[in-house]
């Protein structure tokens, strides 16, 4: 899922400076799963903000609310009737959620409490790793399940550069494993090394610009 992490309290306080009634909306989707924007984090952020306001004699109030996901119309619209009472909103969702809420309620300033980091995996509670950069042209079938876009420092597609150092390390840094060495090992284990011998045309990995997707059945 999309992994995010919470911004520093100073940055959040700066963002909502001057507003009197603030609503903190959490997200029970990706943000909850990576322990960044769930119900507990909303309450903790509110406690921190209230503590800060009290110690600095600021009269801002912060309320809390949660929605299932902020990237979905029906759940964002459920904020109607509640959100209008506030001067500003802190959203503890990923960038997509923040924007969607802002889109639905354009008169109210929406502030992000999280920095959205990557699409990644939940290895263990609190340990998240990036695995996908949503390039739009997945080649994982050819590389034995290791993404050359994400895991290779140069996102190379047709094998390693001339650089891998001893121990299969990337020439960029001895701390990084060469993704193509890993791909080689993986394909060898599966007996599919001929994948490496083939040369593939360059793929149309996603260009800049907003992506859209409309499923056939819903056109």
């Amino acid at each position: 899922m999309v992994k995010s992490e919470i911004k520093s309290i100073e940055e959040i306080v700066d963002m909502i400076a001057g507003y009197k009634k603030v609503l903190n909306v959490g997200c029970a989707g990706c943000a909850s799963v990576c322990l960044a924007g769930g119900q507990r984090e909303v309450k903790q952020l509110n406690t921190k903000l209230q503590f800060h306001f009290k110690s600095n004699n600021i009269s801002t109030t912060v309320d809390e609310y949660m929605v299932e996901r902020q990237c979905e119309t029906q759940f964002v619209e459920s904020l109607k009737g509640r959100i209008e009472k506030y001067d500003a909103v802190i959203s503890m969702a990923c960038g997509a959620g923040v924007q969607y809420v802002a889109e639905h309620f354009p008169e109210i300033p929406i502030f992000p409490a999280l920095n959205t980091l990557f699409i990644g995996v939940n290895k263990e509670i609190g340990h998240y790793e990036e695995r996908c950069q949503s390039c739009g042209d997945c080649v994982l079938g050819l590389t034995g399940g290791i993404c050359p876009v994400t895991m290779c420092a140069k996102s190379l597609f047709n094998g390693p550069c001339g650089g891998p150092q001893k121990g299969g390390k990337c020439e960029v840094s001895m701390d990084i494993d060469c993704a193509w060495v890993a791909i080689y090992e993986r394909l060898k284990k599966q007996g599919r090394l001929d994948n490496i011998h083939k040369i593939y045309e360059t793929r149309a990995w996603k260009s800049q610009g907003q992506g859209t997707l409309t499923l056939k059945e819903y056109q």
Partner: protein
Amino acid sequence: MSTEKNNPVDHKMIKELLDEKKSKMKLSLAACASCSLCAESCFMFNIYDQKPEYMPSYKVIKSLGVLYRKQGKVSRQTLEKMGDLVWKNCVLCGRCYCAVGIDIPEMLAFTRMICRSQGVDGVYPHNLGAPPAECEALGSEN
């Protein structure tokens, strides 16, 4: 979902699936003290007027608990009600906590897996009607 009303529930398959995690699930169900202290950990309980049907313990006891008690011998109607319970009353955000330490999200995910094995799945989006006809035909695994 009229195509599935005529399909009987495969009790043997459910029993086999239940047996896969019997040790952990039965231990968890036995350890549940029905204290309801898990309620506040579920945001749905908090935002939907604190109704007991949103309590994590309720969701588990009335779905997985029933499955284990009846050893998988449930009717399709019961299974569909369970499906409603674990898909509409839960988003599997995984943040529910238990005072005694039971792993609730796993129990809910397990229940979903069993429901899916019988063709009972979460209809998406939950309250905006059925999916188009093509997808419906693909849904049933029986």
